[in-house]
């Protein structure tokens, strides 16, 4: 998943998709690996702001170099007690070659642990990821009681490469019980029209 460091939409959307794909009653911890640049540019996870179902289960790993981050990601994928693994890496480091990415995808598939790798400020290089997203923030719908306040998170998600799914663009909204996809609107969204378009989970991995 590609995102910019000026916003937290990459991690936010990855968490929303991970929550959408998780089974009910999942109580295993999950791993969040950040390299040093990602930590400096986008900040640390903040527990009161995490989704309530994930708050108490976070284990956070700070890696100094991309090599260490890849090691931590792979160890996390191999662990049977982790619900999923979220990685944040900045730029296109040399260590994150196609071979390394393939290693990660194979480990994720072998052990059945989902991996959400957020690439911050990175170019779309060669990759073996099964689903490749581009995430950026989208204007949220105004909340019901205060029209001037920011609403529930929304992202403009572009799926540009996937094995079992045609590419496309959606507006993902995290309001209410689950994640809702809507086709991107040319004009600002005013009403509650997007719900019917795609009420299905996009977190198939």
């Amino acid at each position, binding site marked *: 998943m590609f995102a910019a460091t000026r916003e937290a939409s990459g991690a936010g959307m990855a*968490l929303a998709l991970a929550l959408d794909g998780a089974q009910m009653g999942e109580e295993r911890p999950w791993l969040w690996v950040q390299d040093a640049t990602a930590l400096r540019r986008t900040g640390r996870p*903040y527990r009161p702001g995490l989704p309530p179902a994930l708050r108490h289960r976070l*284990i956070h*790993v*700070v890696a100094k170099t991309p090599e260490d981050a890849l*090691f*931590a990601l792979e160890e996390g994928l*191999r662990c049977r007690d982790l619900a999923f693994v979220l990685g944040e890496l900045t730029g296109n480091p040399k260590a994150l070659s196609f071979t390394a990415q393939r290693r990660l995808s194979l480990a994720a598939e072998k052990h059945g642990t989902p991996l959400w790798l957020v690439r911050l400020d990175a170019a779309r290089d060669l990759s073996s990821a099964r689903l490749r997203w581009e995430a950026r923030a989208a204007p949220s719908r105004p909340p019901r009681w205060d029209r*001037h306040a920011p609403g529930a*998170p929304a992202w403009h998600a572009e799926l540009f490469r996937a094995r079992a799914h045609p590419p496309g663009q959606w507006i993902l909204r995290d309001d209410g019980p689950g994640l809702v996809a809507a086709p991107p609107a040319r004009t600002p969204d005013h009403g509650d029209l997007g719900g019917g378009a795609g009420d299905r989970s996009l977190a198939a991995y």
Partner: protein
Amino acid sequence: MAIWVAALAIDRWQLTEGERAGPFALLSETAHGPRIAATNAAAREAGVRAGTMLADARALCPELAVAPADPAGDRAFLESLALWAQRWGPWTALDPPDGLLVDVTGAAHLFAGETAMLAEAQALLARRGLTARLAIAPTAGAAWALAHFLPFRGGEDVHALDQLPVAALRLDPATVLILRRLGLKRIGELSGVARDALARRFRNTRAPAANPLIRLDQLLGKVPEPLLPVLAPEVPLVQRRLMEPIRHRALLDQVLGDLCADLARVLEGKALGARRLELGLWKVDGEVLVRRLELAAASRDPAHICRLFGARLDDVDAGFGIELARLRVPWCEPLALCQRDFEAAAEEHGTSLAACIDRLSIRLGEGAVRRPVLHASHLPERAQRWERPLTAEPASQGELAFHARPLKLFDRAEPIAVLYASPDGLPRRFRWRGEVHEIARAEGPERIAPEWWRERGTVRLRDYYRIEDSTGRRYWIYRHGLAGDGRGGAPEWFLQGLYA
């Protein structure tokens, strides 16, 4: 039973260095020069007292021989003596600096009565070269008092205690001085005074050593007196002495694997798991290399321990060879025997969480793997702390549902340049990291005042706004201070967090 080795330091010195006939003293270094810590009988006869300066003592007794005192060594000797004294009772407690308390409840008949037991203890201590004074009494306080002030009489009753001086209550010198000024010199005189008067006099002192009433009740057994027993920790230890010194890594790995397998067997027999491990490698040239390891959860899996140590042995310089390898477990935790998983598939499926965390913290460092826990604070950056994973979560207040907090928080809030502020205080446009953001929607302010009980009075308050810019990016910004609050110039703006 209380044992008082009256001249512990002198006895120990004479045991190690040999008997000395003339006047002799041990010295402790103080800020005002050497001061006498302990003396032998000949020096006492010559008039040298513990506590005088060395120069004064030399004036009294020019032929005085001295040596430096070793309080830490005395303490270690007392601890080993406490373990040795467990031959008379199930547990012993230290009574620093020079005493021991042995619980002999129900053990006296094994030594043919209390009198015979005291005689045997006296003889055994004398054979070790220690002059000791002993007493047996129903309470620890009474035994202490009798041993220090009324030697060698067992099974005394309360009336014998009445005649002892008040210092026998184990009080501070200052409290003894107060009691002497009040005219109370014997323990019996304390019960003569109305208890209310004494309670009023010492109502502010809670420490037992400063409150004669508590000590009196402990002496008579009216209030319990908890004591800290001395226990000998049994450290699981395995070692391999090598016939030929080894110089190569492959051989060292082999030895390490053998050690881990031995250790697993030892720990399994005791139903323990290792939390901290110490690997010592003795080299031929006399050097000792020590590698320490700490595990996130108790484990005795030899493959896991071997793998973790393997990552720490890369920088070992074997020199002329390693001749002895030893693995110790200074910190164990109970780990019950458990049945292996029936499904072999579960074994192959992956590592456990504790093993994963061990591997991560060995490679990335101790502080790299953390979990957030809540902390009671209003300030957002103080409201979360980082702790080791797998520890129990501390109790904390529930989070407020109407607080919409950002997903990520910067370690240091980043300053933003406000380009245009509307009259009600919120900027309409700001510049952050070289890009201009137009605020489309905002919610706030949420005012968070500084914590006056912790910070100085000049710290400014913060007004937080939850904002969304024209392209939908959501931020958490705050204004530091108010215009005209007298705590600095114009208020500054900061961006502290990113919303999802």
